[in-house]
């Protein structure tokens, strides 16, 4: 039978081990994704000219006026030169930021002996590794509601320091409403063991401009399978609840159904906003989740 433990509150803050692990993971993340982005040619990172028409400062092209367009768009100086109407288009320049948020609440400090590590450790490694990979790829990365987005090479250390300083974050199990910009992306790493309504609110607060986002659900295998039997009392590290569930084997049936419903709800929330949901179990290697998130971010970019 699986045994469970809670890690200390202190170890829910990233230390050398986590940053080192994150860098190591980022090291092995393939260039593949970034290569593909370069090949697509429609995607650039950071404040670049996007080599296509869009909001920006520099001139891109004149094109003929199409019926139905706003008349204010007409470039009269160019149009005066012949009988046709022209619209001046500028090159699309937009800063793309990726905001990462890592759940460090008490429920994340949970590990069973079926898992490789505790959930919070896995979340930190995953989040910081993603940050490093994005910066490598030219994006600007920040912690949601905590730091500015930056593209510095030492992004992992910067973010880890910010996390260590943020003591309030040890109590929050959902991201703060940060209102990211239209073309920003949000990556939320958490166990999402909060009621769906609160998750929905948080996701809506972080997608007010219709920006994209990715939910990464870090779960301990025990939370998924509930392999216990016999009389048991459950304790919740976060709310301080305890529940006498009687015979655990029988209770597990209902529990698994409930967790499956919860996941379905999460997936529906993500789908409604056009976000994605990645489920990662701590008995699997972190690279799996990292790869999937990178692919999803790349794919989302591809759709413009």
């Amino acid at each position, binding site marked *: 039978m699986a045994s*469970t*433990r*809670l890690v200390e509150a202190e170890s829910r803050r990233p230390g050398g081990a986590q940053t080192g692990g994150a860098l190591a993971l980022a090291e092995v993340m393939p260039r593949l994704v970034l290569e593909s982005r370069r090949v697509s040619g429609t995607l650039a990172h950071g404040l670049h000219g996007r080599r*296509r*028409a*869009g909001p920006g400062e520099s001139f891109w092209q004149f*094109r003929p006026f*199409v*019926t*139905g367009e706003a008349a204010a768009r007409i470039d009269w100086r160019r149009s005066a030169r012949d009988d046709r109407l022209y619209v001046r*288009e500028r090159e699309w320049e937009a800063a793309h930021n990726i905001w990462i948020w890592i759940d460090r609440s*008490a*429920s*994340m400090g*949970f590990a069973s002996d079926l898992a490789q590590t505790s959930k919070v450790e896995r979340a930190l490694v995953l989040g910081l590794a993603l940050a490093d990979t994005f910066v490598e790829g030219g994006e600007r990365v920040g912690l949601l509601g905590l730091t500015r987005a930056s593209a510095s090479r030492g992004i992992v250390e910067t973010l880890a320091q910010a996390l260590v300083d943020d003591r309030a974050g040890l109590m929050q199990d959902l991201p703060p409403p940060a209102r990211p910009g239209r073309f920003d992306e949000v990556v939320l790493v958490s*166990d999402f*063991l*909060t*009621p769906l309504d609160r998750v929905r609110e948080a996701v809506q607060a972080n997608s007010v401009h219709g920006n994209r986002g990715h939910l990464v659900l870090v779960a*301990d295998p*025990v*939370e998924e399978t509930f392999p*216990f039997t*016999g*009389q*048991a*009392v*459950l*304790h*919740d*590290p*976060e*709310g*301080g*609840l*305890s*529940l*006498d*569930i*009687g*015979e*655990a084997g*029988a*209770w597990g*049936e*209902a*529990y698994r159904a*409930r*967790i499956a419903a*919860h996941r379905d709800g999460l997936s529906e929330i993500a*789908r*409604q*906003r*056009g*976000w994605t949901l990645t489920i990662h179990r701590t008995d699997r290697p972190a690279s799996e989740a990292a790869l999937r998130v990178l692919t999803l971010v790349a794919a989302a970019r591809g*759709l*413009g």
Partner: protein
Amino acid sequence: MFGIPLTFAAPLALAALVALPALWVLLRVTPPRPRRIHFPPLALVADLLPKRETPARTPPWLLILRILAAACLILAVAGPVWNPGGIGAAAGREPLLLILDNGFVAAQDWRDRLRAATDEIEAAARDGRPVALVASAEAPAPFEARPPAAALERLRAIKPRPHLGDRDAHLASIGTFLERMPAASIVWISDGVRGVGETDFAKSLGDLASRHGSAVTVLKAERSPALALEGSPVQPGEKLSAQVLRAEANGRDAGLVRALDQKGLPLAESRFTLQPEAREASVSFDLPVELRNAIARLEIEGEHSAGAVVLMDERGKRRRVGLVFGGTLDQAQPLLAPTYYLAKALSPFADVQQPRAGQGTAESIGQMLDNQVSVLALADVGALDDRTLARVETFVEEGGLLLRFAGPRLAAGNDPLVPVRLRRGGRSLGGTLSWDRPKTLAAFAPESPFAGLNPPADIGVRRQILAEPDGDLPGKTWAALQDGTPIVTAGKRGQGLVVLFHVTADTTWSNLPLSGLFVDMLRRVVGLAGPSAKLGEGDGRQANGQAKAALLAPRLTLDGFGALGSPPASATAVPADFADRAGPEHPPGFYGTAEGGIAVNALAPGDRLRPLDLTGLKGARMGSLAGAETLDLRALLFSLALTLLALDTLAGLWLGGFFRGAGRVSRGRAATAALLLPALLGLALVFAPPPARAQEPPANRPNGIESALATRLAFVVTGDAATDAASRAGLSGLSQMLAARTALEPGEPAGLNLEKDELAFYPLIYWPIVAGRPQPSEAAIRKIDAFMRNGGTVIFDTRDAQTARANGPPTPETAYLRKMLATLEVPELEPVPPDHVLTKAFYLVDSFPGRLSTGQTWVETIPPAGEGGERRPARAGDGVTPIIITGNDLAAAWAVGRNGEPLYPVTGDQRQREMAFRGGINIVIYTLTGNYKADQVHVPALLERLGQ
């Protein structure tokens, strides 16, 4: 035991009661302490109930409940019996002789009797006494005492017999038994009714008993509650009557007698009332003859006894009429045959029989007489051969009714079988060679059987046979024409009657057979016929005048409870003139064939029930059937224990928190929350609106007046953000392209929520299929159905052209679409044919690619091109295809961003995107213009016709 009437079958089992205190200790054992598990998802599932739980300490009241249940079980196992031994039980080890009356009188309260008998036998079983059982209505046979279990077995096989019992017959065997077992105690469960023709059984039994020193106990109802019904199975006439009988005044003074037909359907019911002291009352039914003839049995409602049933046989029923036509029956024109008119007119109230086709007149008449008809109708039969004539004469002499109709053959012949002397030849009235007009009927004379009927004025007799004006002619005339010439005459012959209509039975001589009067006249004539010719008489004559009547085998017999069934093996045939009451060998029921059988009843006419005289039985104990019954308390105790255990289960559930809806949560606040949660959940379920969906911003739903003002393309919002964005962008792109290239300038595309939005404003709805989404509701499907029916077009885009395989399994999208369309009325589909007007509505296109190009596009099948006609470049059906199914992901190809840039790559080159736009423009123009383009091919012809 202790002065109360309670005994135990297994008293030793009571010793187990000592173990109850040990059980007390056992039940108080505390369950093991549960283990603690840290579990973060608890907050999500705090309201999930524990499934199985043993509380730490069993509460005292629950303990008491369980101890009680255990005590009940122990007591039940000990087998307590309340009031052991029946009333008639006598102490001792002597055998018990049980005499059980099982004639039909006992059927009414058979259960009580059976229970009383069972009680007696069980009491004997407890005392270990052998039992002898005599059923008084069975055939007498020697018997001996047997073990009680065997007697019980035999008792279960005894059923009430459908006839009266004959107790006297058993006296001999009872005497023999008592000789051998002198001290046997006798219990007689009596029905309290003295059988017909029975001597004083009670006195004889008393003598036997006192001679052998036996104690006699008589168990009987204080007053025999049985009712019986007595009536004749043969009741001519329209009125049916029967007597309700009882042996003595018993308080059952009113009831219902019901008349049923062959199938057991009630036809009529009649209420009877017995004077408080009277022993019989009459009940009668006055019914139209058709209904009355259908009645097969009378029964007292709710009596369930063979004695309360009177079966009616065929002898009192519909007259059987045999039709014989003297001419050749032209089978090609059956509607012109006289027999047709007669059969039609007679069938409402008589049983019409016609001879087999292809026989001569004599054979036909012979067959009819063999069939025991009561009325023989001869339509235009002339002279008969001597043998047939003799048979017909005998038939009439013995009470048959001969009904004759005139005709050319009768007019030509000289026939003794007529009521009056006839003149040769007929008289024609109103013919082409006559001055007369057809004569109509005079009013019927009061002494005529037709008196009271009203001859209509439009009856015309064109031809008739005239009677010689003899002196007795007026007395024999039943109906006459206005000029006094008889038209119906009748004469008695022996016990029978000969009736002659002086016209034909068809319309050649008069239109009388067409009138309703004809039916009424025939009804009255047939009503005069006596009961059917005596049954068995024909058979008897065929047996060369053998005196003995024919035997009729039992067909359906009553059981003791008055239900018809197949006859038992012991039933034997009865002679056709059987008129006695039923007996053991002849149970009541129907005997003989269905057409001509007789009914035998449990009581013969005139039988009366009399109460049993028990004064001759000296020194007998009397007991009541409804006396104190022996009660085996085992069943009661077992069910009590079961109830207590069920209560215990409920209590266990309650203690386990099932009804509180939550487990025991340690902290106060959390406990309150957990307690409130289920209640709130319940409330929310009651009051919740349908689950909240992603709310479309109002601007995306330009319904109402804006939608009516501009033509818009529309798409179905699937709830999948990426797909919906693609649909919106795609339709925007197509709208821009339409505005740029065609005369149509559509408004902003509209996203439709099928559950809420009105669809009537949109000519074309684009519906991308997303496999994972829930199916639209039934209401939405009906809405789409109405939309398609009223001329709208829906494009279903499965977007799976890349993954679909021609003969592979359906893709998830295709499966989803099939499921959705299963309830829609989808017309027959075909891939877009090359000459479909859809390919020519604006651009000339071959296919309809989108982001993908390999998918097939399906539209409603249009009628095939006419054979041989000139080959037209475009074909169209009557309307616009209501459905277009494609897998090419059209919207993605059309999708443009805010600045006009394409959003999604296409699988082919840029030309494919252009072709996608062209296809899209064609689809839109097609939905808006219908088959207009197909009709354009006629323009040259029209111009030519105009002379241009």
